């Protein structure tokens, strides 16, 4: 067992532990915060694997953007601070069974598949930004351009679903959708 193995196993344990807390915690905000730990530990694993560009993108986009978006989502759906009941559905035993079966299948297959696979880390590094840029803008340029269209489409879609038409002053009513008497308690 090399030092890299030991560090990776530690990071893997952190990743898995915080991931389990994400899916079991009873507090919505804590789930988002544990998600930060998971993503951070994964970014550290990528650094260990010398994929530095991917690691920093992971930090910037996952920790920086996705988690913030999720926190906004939690806030806007008026989740209570503290414990909330009913985050888990009734089919938890089924979910545990399916997840255990998935884990057993995947672990068996990958252990059998990569028993002999070792890698010498570090020299040369596997993913500097220079290498990644050269590869993206030559081999993968078409999917990259299509990806920009995907972002545009997602942007427009989100705007369509969220933006209220701006109406001339005086015509719009004061009714606010979230203040209807149904009450936020169920969220």
């Amino acid at each position, binding site marked *: 067992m090399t030092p890299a193995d030991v560090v990776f196993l530690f990071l893997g344990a952190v990743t898995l532990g915080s991931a389990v807390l994400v899916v079991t915690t009873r507090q919505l905000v804590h789930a988002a915060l544990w998600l930060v730990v998971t993503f951070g530990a994964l970014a550290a694993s990528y650094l260990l694997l010398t994929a530095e560009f991917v690691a920093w993108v992971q930090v910037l986009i996952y920790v920086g953007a996705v988690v913030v978006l999720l926190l906004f989502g939690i806030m806007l759906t008026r989740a209570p601070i503290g414990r909330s009941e009913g985050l888990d559905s009734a089919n938890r035993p089924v979910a545990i069974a399916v997840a255990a079966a998935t884990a057993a*299948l*995947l672990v068996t*297959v*990958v252990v*059998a*598949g*990569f028993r002999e696979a070792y890698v010498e880390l570090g020299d*040369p590094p596997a993913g500097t930004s*220079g*290498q990644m*840029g*050269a590869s993206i*803008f*030559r*081999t*993968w*340029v*078409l*999917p990259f351009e*299509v*990806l920009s*269209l*995907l972002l*545009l*489409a*997602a942007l*427009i*879609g989100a*705007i*369509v*679903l*969220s*933006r*209220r*038409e701006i*109406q001339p002053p005086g*015509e*719009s*009513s004061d*009714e606010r*959708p979230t203040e*209807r008497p149904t009450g936020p308690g169920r969220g």
Partner: protein
Amino acid sequence: MNSQLLAQSAVQAPHIEYGQLAPMLIVFGLAIAGVLVEAFVPRRARSAVHAPLTLVGLAAAFVATVLQAGTHHVAAEGAVGVDGPTLFIQGTIIALAFVSSLLIAERRPDTSAFVSDAASVPGTQEERESLVAGDVQTEVYPLTMFAVGGMLLFPAANDLLTMFVALEVLSLPLYVLCGLARRRRLLSQEAAVKYFLLGAFSSAFFLYGIAMVYGFAGSIRLSEIALAVSHSGGNETLLLLGLALLGMGLLFKLGAVPFHSWKPDVYQGAPTPITALMGSCTVVAAFGALLRVLYVGFGGMQWDWRPFMWGIAILTMVIGAIVAITQADVKRMLAYSSIAHAGFVLTGVIASSSQGLSSTLFYLVAYGFTTVGAFAIVTLVRDAAGEANHLSRWAGLGRRSPLVAGIFAFFLLAFAGIPLTSGFTGKFAVFAAAVAGGATPLVIVGVLSSAVAAFFYVRVIVVMFFSDPNPDGPTVAAPSLLTGAAVAVGVAVTLVLGVLPQPALDLAANAAAGLFVR
């Protein structure tokens, strides 16, 4: 690699064959033009600009596809395969998108299918105001074009990375479009949530499959995967797991059992023109991608995947046909019928021969046009609350409006596979290919479930023609030019492919003859 070498290789520009990519470039260009129209054209004039722009653009894309006929080439640095089957599938998708766009463009304030202001809450003052003003959410056009562009790229993708990007480009706009129905908005939004969550779940499996295949083959190019498959020894469980997960993602998109649970809900909840688009174009695109993955990437291990596909095909045909019998909603019934038809097409896919490929292509054309036509009829049968989708409301429609009921009955007979319709020719072609490929038991199951399916199609015809009309039943809206044209195209193609199928069969055979480029 030192930095100087890197700089040299980075300067070298990628080689892009713009001519061969023209169909999807035109469609993506249309989407962007649509966004610009949203930005700069006054609100009232937008629909009038969007509709002709979309239709002319799609026609141009179709011409561009036809001009590429005979190409057999890997384009765009290996990302896209341009070959006979792909061009045939792309042409089919563009033609079906054109007919669906006719339905989407149906914009009289009383019959538009789309919401006036998606962000408003049903029942509030704001919503009433925007409804009275006759507003419609015109972003539907660019979103549709983004989705169609993704569908064109999906079956052409020559590596799994491009295929995944295309999958997401076609899915994300569809999630939004599903939630934009003008009537029964809560149902529509529920459909959007379900489609989104299940879609995201299934694409995670698709990706895990890609990772496993990558770990096995060392590349995500289909041609190199094929190479690794042919040299494989010992380590095949990894490959099988990868293919199974990859297949799950693709089978989810085309709604094969057991990955079909979203389909009835989404087809019912989505605006009917979008249902027509999904029922035709998305299914064609997903089959195109499945064919390419199975024939190009994993053709060397067909003895491994065929038993699984047999099981999926049998389940899909039988469950689709049986569950459809109990449905009381027209759109749900058509959704289950679409599931059953996916099973019939899979029998052609399993044949894994040039004959299987050409019969699959023909079936997709025949089924696609009949589907669009049938959903066009569904948009016409309306009452005060919008479309009357419950089957009991259709009772006696044949007496009130014989022409519309007659055309719908014709489409149903085509779905059932009655001779002189395209459905018969298509089923005959795929079953013949399956028998030639040694899958006779599969064909027997297929014929039996066709018989079951025929039962519920005929039941709808009986309800329409042999029961008394409901006094306050739905009226049939006089079809406008656009919807009328969509129905007419559906009828014409269904009839021509049933009576004179030979030219189309030859075209499909020619397209399939060269198989997929590697």
